[in-house]
């Protein structure tokens, strides 16, 4: 049976449970007139039965789809033809993959695939058996669940409360998915990073001053020593983020102040969507802008002033990244400035302060913790930003505080280390995970601190 057919049948069963249970609930109450004697509205009895019909069957589908293939493959391995009996590990995976390809009818007729024809047929038959077993079981479960709920219906059954509990469970489930995904990502990064640190000492990575991840293939190659000191990457990231924050924080803050304290409603209604558009521009476009417009512009400007500006200067990248972050800063600051009670502004104005004195002496100090929180979030965006720097920042690690020189960042290195054909167990690729871990931890820390600061601030004005 096709999987989609099975799903349709299950849906039908669920709907039928709903309709029948609802009808029975009304019947047990003695018709529509007696509905007030029911604990819950009739539809809740319908949902109650529908949940019983759908829940167990869905759970079975989930478990089956996760567990069936490994079990079937275990059986397939047992019937592999003679030459493949003894192989193991990655080679076995290749063989089994061929079996899958053949079973799906996409074989390309290689020698190995011809030898595996029989196995593939066996695999197919096992799969078919598995599918029909699943269909039978699922339909049975749906029927049994629906029937069980149907039998339980009586006016005192607290269907409404049961439904509430199930809804709650579903919502909790949804949020755990997010948490577990984050944990999963973290664990995979930690795992790979640990492999890296078993080859390169931790302190050498964190405090080393030289970054040159290309290991030599031939002994006579130069500049390929394979050094993994990440400090130049950190300083490069800091330099670019620093320039970006120098642009984004003052401008974003001034925009927020203008919008909150000075702008007429009509101006506000115009500027806010424009800022949202700015926030919605894909970073790839900012990347173009940085590489194609900003970099040459700065070069020419530098030449006119007699300055040496690298074409991948940190300044250019940082400026564009700053523009990207402006809406972020302005909308966060806008929120916190708006949260400062109007009564404080009134108090200051009533003492004869001007609007700007009020902002400087009352509104901003009161909003400061929230603004700091917003800036921290913005910093974490800046150091995690990838596309702009990949397109417009340099590749070679250089330790400098001069924004006119080219520097590289953590994210750029992660991308260059992983892009292209790579073996996934060389120090070079594993270094990307170590960098990723650092990035993850730093942004996590920044976000947590920012959230705590902002929350404190909110409580202050509850």
């Amino acid at each position, binding site marked *: 049976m096709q999987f989609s057919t099975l799903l349709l049948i299950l849906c039908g069963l669920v709907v039928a449970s709903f309709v029948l249970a609802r009808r029975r609930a009304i019947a047990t109450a003695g018709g529509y007139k007696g509905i007030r004697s029911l604990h819950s509205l009739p539809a809740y009895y319908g949902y109650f039965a529908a949940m019983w019909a759908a829940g167990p069957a869905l759970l079975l589908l989930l478990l089956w789809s996760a567990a069936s293939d490994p079990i079937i493959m275990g059986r397939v391995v047992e019937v592999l033809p003679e030459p493949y009996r003894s192989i193991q590990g990655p080679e076995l995976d290749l063989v089994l993959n061929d079996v899958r390809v053949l079973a799906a009818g996409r074989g390309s007729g290689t020698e190995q695939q011809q030898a595996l024809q029989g196995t593939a047929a066996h695999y197919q038959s096992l799969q078919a058996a598995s599918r029909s077993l699943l269909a039978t079981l699922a339909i049975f479960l749906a029927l049994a669940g629906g029937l069980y709920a149907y039998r339980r219906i009586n006016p005192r059954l607290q269907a409404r409360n049961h439904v509430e509990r199930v809804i709650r469970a579903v919502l909790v489930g949804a949020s755990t998915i997010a948490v577990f995904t984050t944990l999963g990502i973290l664990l995979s990064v930690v795992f790979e990073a640990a492999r890296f640190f078993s080859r390169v000492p931790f302190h050498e990575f964190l405090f080393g001053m030289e970054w040159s991840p290309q290991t030599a293939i031939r002994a006579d190659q130069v500049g390929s020593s394979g050094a993994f000191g990440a400090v130049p990457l950190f300083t490069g990231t800091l330099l670019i983020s620093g320039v970006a924050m120098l642009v984004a924080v003052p401008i974003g803050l001034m925009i927020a102040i203008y919008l909150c304290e000075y702008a007429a*409603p009509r101006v506000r209604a115009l500027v806010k969507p424009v800022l949202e558009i700015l926030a919605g521009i894909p970073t790839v476009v900012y990347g173009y802008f940085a590489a194609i417009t900003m970099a040459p512009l700065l070069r020419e400007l530098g030449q006119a002033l007699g300055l040496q500006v690298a074409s991948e200067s940190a300044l250019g990248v940082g400026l564009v990244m700053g523009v990207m972050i402006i809406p972020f800063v302005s909308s966060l600051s806008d929120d916190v400035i708006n949260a400062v*009670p109007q*009564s*404080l*502004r*009134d*108090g*200051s*104005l*009533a*003492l*004869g*302060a*001007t609007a700007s*004195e009020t902002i400087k*002496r*009352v509104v901003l*100090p*009161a909003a400061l913790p929230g603004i700091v929180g917003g800036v921290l979030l913005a910093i974490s965006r800046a150091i995690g930003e990838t596309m702009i720097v990949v397109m417009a920042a340099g590749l070679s690690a250089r330790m400098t505080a001069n924004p006119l020189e080219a520097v590289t960042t953590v994210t750029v290195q992660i991308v260059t280390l992983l892009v292209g054909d790579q073996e996934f167990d060389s120090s070079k690729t594993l270094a990307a995970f170590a960098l990723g871990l650092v990035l993850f931890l730093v942004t996590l820390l920044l976000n947590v601190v920012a959230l705590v600061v902002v929350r404190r601030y909110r409580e*202050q004005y509850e």
Partner: protein
Amino acid sequence: MASRISTTMDAAAFVAPAGGGEPGTVGDIHASDPVITVRGGNVHYGETHALKNVSLDIGRNEVVALIGPSGCGKSTFIRCLNRMNDTIEGARVTGEFRLDGQDIYAPEMDVVMLRTRVGMVFQKPNPFAKSIYENVAYGPRIHGLARSRSELDDIVYGSLRRAGLLDEVKDRLDRPGTGLSGGQQQRLCIARAIAVNPEVILMDEPCSALDPIATARIEDLIDELSQNYAIAIVTHSMQQAARVSRRVAYFHLGMLVEVGATDKIFTNPSHRLTEDYVTGRFG
């Protein structure tokens, strides 16, 4: 008569012809030595006509209590006197508002200077998120009233003393003003207002968020302050109006219905609406 106050027919019908002052208001709107004079004041918030043709004087060293049901325009009226309505989008003020004979709404009037001369205390205490000292020093600092730190100290201590708060806070002046109790916060706000040495103090229900003891302290304070300042106080408590004020103005639906000496208003009001309100049959 009814044609002048034309927007609300049933209310207009209640308003009896003049009893001695401007048409529309019963009682004498004049003060012997007025600081503030209002003639024919009107306020619109967009479509809402919140203050209708109000005329009233506030005398030097006099406490005038403004009473009336919620939404009758008491706050609107006092906010006209220091132009706080300027901050409200769509508020439109017409009529004659004078401070010491100067037109408050004249184009050449400096709003900032006006507000130092007409101070305000709000319904909810609103100390700044600063230290107690800085809260009081705020006004003197922005207006450059003190030439040295010791002058500033004098102003701050003097204001706190006159607000009856100094003894309670003198050893924690550097602590945040928001950490004080509600009543202390309100006295801090009063200290903050008198620190810039205004001529008039407007108080909009200054005790409505306070407990009875804190309220009593503020009332005593108002009594003392009335020796140096003209005070207009909005209150919902008839007892409070009776205790602190010399004159009472009763507002109703944006109109000033009756003005008179406090004991006259509470014992023998001339207007039906006033009588209904002060005897508790209304509002």
